């Protein structure tokens, strides 16, 4: 565990006053939710670097298809053709791994694993998760899954290359593409462990939120972060088992020769004996997970944004209950829209129209959330911390990416746009960039609580502006390329009519350059992150003047979080700038009896 060692020195002095545990129990096989959160974060960062680097590699192929990459051969060696171009099958493997890594390993495990673990006990006033033991297992199953996925990149034949959705029959038949051999087997094994990890985590998160809230922490006093995390965990418990089913049947088809997904196949001059299966079954099972999964990715970020925007606007969150109900609404709707990924799979048009309507209804809770973020910012006493900028950036991406969802969710327009770069543009903005921005926002905001030091603010600003402008420059032009009809996942567009490919070449060059700059800018963050763990300015106990309980713990909370009694919760989390109050924030543990000057008539009932 190289990552763990990076911050061991720091944490050692923080823990001095506590009972001694062995090094291994404290930093490697730790049951402390804060340590597990950091393990998830650092493993997630590791994966994000790989996933980002892969995307830059295939962007080179798309922007500069004739460039000679021979100089890179010491690093990527046999991934190149003799002409120094990226091998077509490697290209497919790169896009597959980029998707798998970013969706599952970074934005599910890295994001949920970090903030759900870190914040649920701290913000609810619990000493730890319901089961620290299962929590530890959750991380180590994720680690095992990571090791297997990482291994698959280096095996003969390369990693899985049928796209991150691994549709059969491409993924079921080793003769279909070289990545469908050992690479695909490892993908399935790795993802099975990943599901186990996600489930163990989610079981713990739900149990902790329901059962381990401190005295006075009723459901409607919970910070919106916790609401978002709770819904995320519930989605995980209900949807990840379905991915396990899908993977199980695929494993059976691959290893034992069953026909769950296969029928009437003629490949490489050979007719296969498989009869009676259906490749569409896989799509149904996969997207029954896959659609809730995109909300598993975005909801924690929306929760983080609620907290950061309210704190840094010095205003109560606008429409607390509306926010809660729209989270629940998004959660419920996420289970009845999966077939909008399958409009062109030959489904009954009537069924398509049902899924269209259900999909478009998601615009309602999403719009409520966007409106409430903006209304919270409106005339607030805004403090532009880096976390705040990233949260505002999230709102921007959530809106501009969400709008294109209205087109894609419509089964008629989707006939034209399906599997084009328009889809790529849509989900990279609304799901990818938005949840990445939530992740960054969370790291900047809770870094002082995690490591007892502050990240450098100016580097944060530079990082934000490069990433914010960069992400738009990368993903916005893809809309045009998509509307022009360019399909996603293609290695090259040689079959396009003369003139068409050339007329969009400059846009592809532009996107690739923007992607390179944006990717490079992430190293500012990496430097800031690791440098600040050791050398950052020492943090005060409540650097953002925030109301939630985590800021009532010591600067470096030990095992058990609060040295003495757990604070009792007396009010909701959003008493910012309350008229008449001495300060512009009243933490959740301050009773109404201590604030007679600012109590409203209805507060007297508490």
């Amino acid at each position, binding site marked *: 565990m190289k990552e763990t060692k990076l911050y061991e020195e720091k944490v050692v002095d923080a823990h001095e006053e506590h009972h001694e545990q062995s090094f291994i129990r404290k930093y490697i096989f730790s049951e402390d939710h804060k340590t597990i959160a950091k393990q998830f974060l650092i493993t997630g960062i590791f994966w994000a670097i790989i996933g980002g680097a892969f995307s830059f590699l295939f962007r080179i192929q798309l922007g500069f298809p004739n460039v000679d990459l021979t100089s890179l051969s010491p690093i990527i060696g046999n991934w190149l053709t003799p002409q120094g171009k990226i091998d077509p099958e490697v290209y497919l493997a790169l896009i597959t791994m980029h998707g798998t890594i970013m969706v599952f390993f970074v934005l599910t495990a890295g994001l949920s694993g970090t903030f759900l673990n870190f914040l649920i006990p701290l913000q609810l006033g619990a000493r730890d998760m319901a*089961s620290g033991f299962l929590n530890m297992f959750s991380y180590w199953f994720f680690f095992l899954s990571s090791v297997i996925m990482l291994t698959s990149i280096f095996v003969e034949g390369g990693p899985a290359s049928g796209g991150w959705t691994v549709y059969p029959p491409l993924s079921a038949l080793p003769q279909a593409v070289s990545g469908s051999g050992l690479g695909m087997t490892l993908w399935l094994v790795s993802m099975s462990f990943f599901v186990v990890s996600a489930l163990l985590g989610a079981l713990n998160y739900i149990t902790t939120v329901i059962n381990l809230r401190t*005295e006075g922490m009723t459901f409607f006093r919970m910070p919106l972060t916790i609401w978002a995390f709770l819904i995320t965990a519930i989605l995980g418990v209900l949807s*990840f088992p379905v991915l396990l*089913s899908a993977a199980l049947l695929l494993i*059976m088809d691959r290893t034992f020769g069953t026909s769950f997904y296969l029928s009437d196949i003629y490949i490489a001059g050979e007719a296969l004996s498989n009869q009676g299966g259906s490749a569409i079954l896989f799509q149904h099972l996969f997207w029954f997970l896959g659609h809730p999964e995109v909300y598993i990715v975005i909801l924690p970020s929306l929760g983080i944004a609620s907290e950061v925007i309210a704190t840094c606007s010095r205003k109560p969150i606008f429409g607390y209950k509306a926010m809660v109900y729209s989270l629940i609404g998004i959660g419920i709707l996420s289970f009845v829209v999966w077939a909008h990924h399958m409009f062109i799979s030959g489904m009954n048009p009537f069924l398509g129209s049902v899924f269209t309507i259900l999909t478009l209804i998601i615009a309602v809770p999403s719009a409520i959330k966007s409106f409430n973020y903006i209304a919270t910012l409106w005339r607030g006493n805004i403090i532009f911390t880096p976390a705040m900028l990233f949260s505002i950036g999230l709102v921007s991406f959530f809106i501009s990416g969400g709008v294109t969802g209205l087109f894609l969710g419509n089964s008629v327009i989707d006939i034209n746009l399906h599997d084009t770069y328009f889809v790529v543009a849509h989900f990279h903005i609304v799901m990818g960039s938005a949840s990445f921005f939530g992740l960054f926002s969370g790291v900047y905001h809770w870094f002082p609580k995690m490591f007892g030091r502050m990240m450098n603010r100016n580097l944060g600003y530079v990082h934000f502006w490069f990433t914010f402008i960069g992400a738009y420059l990368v993903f916005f032009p893809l809309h045009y390329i998509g509307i022009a009809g360019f399909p996603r996942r293609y290695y090259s567009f040689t079959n396009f009519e003369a003139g068409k490919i050339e007329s969009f070449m400059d846009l592809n060059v532009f996107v690739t350059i923007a992607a390179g700059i944006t990717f490079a800018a992430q190293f500012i963050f990496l430097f800031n992150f690791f440098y600040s763990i050791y050398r950052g300015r020492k943090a005060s106990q409540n650097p953002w003047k925030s109301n939630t309980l985590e800021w009532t713990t010591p600067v470096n909370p030990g095992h058990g979080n609060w040295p003495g009694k757990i604070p009792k919760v007396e009010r909701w989390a959003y008493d910012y700038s309350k008229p008449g109050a001495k300060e512009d924030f009243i933490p959740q543990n301050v009773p109404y009896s201590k604030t007679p000057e600012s109590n409203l008539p209805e507060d007297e009932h508490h």
Partner: protein
Amino acid sequence: MNNKTKSRILRMNPNIFLVWIFMISISMIFVSLVSAYIVKKGEPGGFNVELPLMFYYSSFIVVLSSVFKQLAYYSAKKDNFKSLKIYLLLSFIGGLSFLFIQYLGWVNLVDGGVYFVGHPDGSFIYILSGVHAIHLISGLIFILVVYVFSIKFKIHSKNLNLIEMSTTYWHFLTFLWVYLFITLYFYNI
């Protein structure tokens, strides 16, 4: 923690709650597999399978083992350690026999010409009973853990959480099989 707060905040033993959520997530595996099976049965070109007689026997055995498990729980509640251990063992043996009879059921299926590799109408029966069997093994291990604790006199009327968890889980697995059996029965006539 005073009583007033307890009434305001829903509280349950976290570990028992964990078991319930765990059962929900297992249910989702079977919900997805069963719905896939139902859709498959609705398509033309399939065939009906006559369920092996052994599946009828195994259903009876697994219900019986659940009854023993419940009796074990009652014994623990009454601090009757001797019958606690006997009933735990009986339910464990019931579970083991269930697994063995399921295996015989598979042999019956193969003899009847229904193979795992072939048309999904047949394969699904193996998948559903097989995935259930894997979960049943985890339930058996859980009973063993409870048995070891009961030998050490760590399970008694003041400490029922562990046996409650394992009993709930065991009943769930019984119910699951009965549900699968009825579903398979009605989709094959």
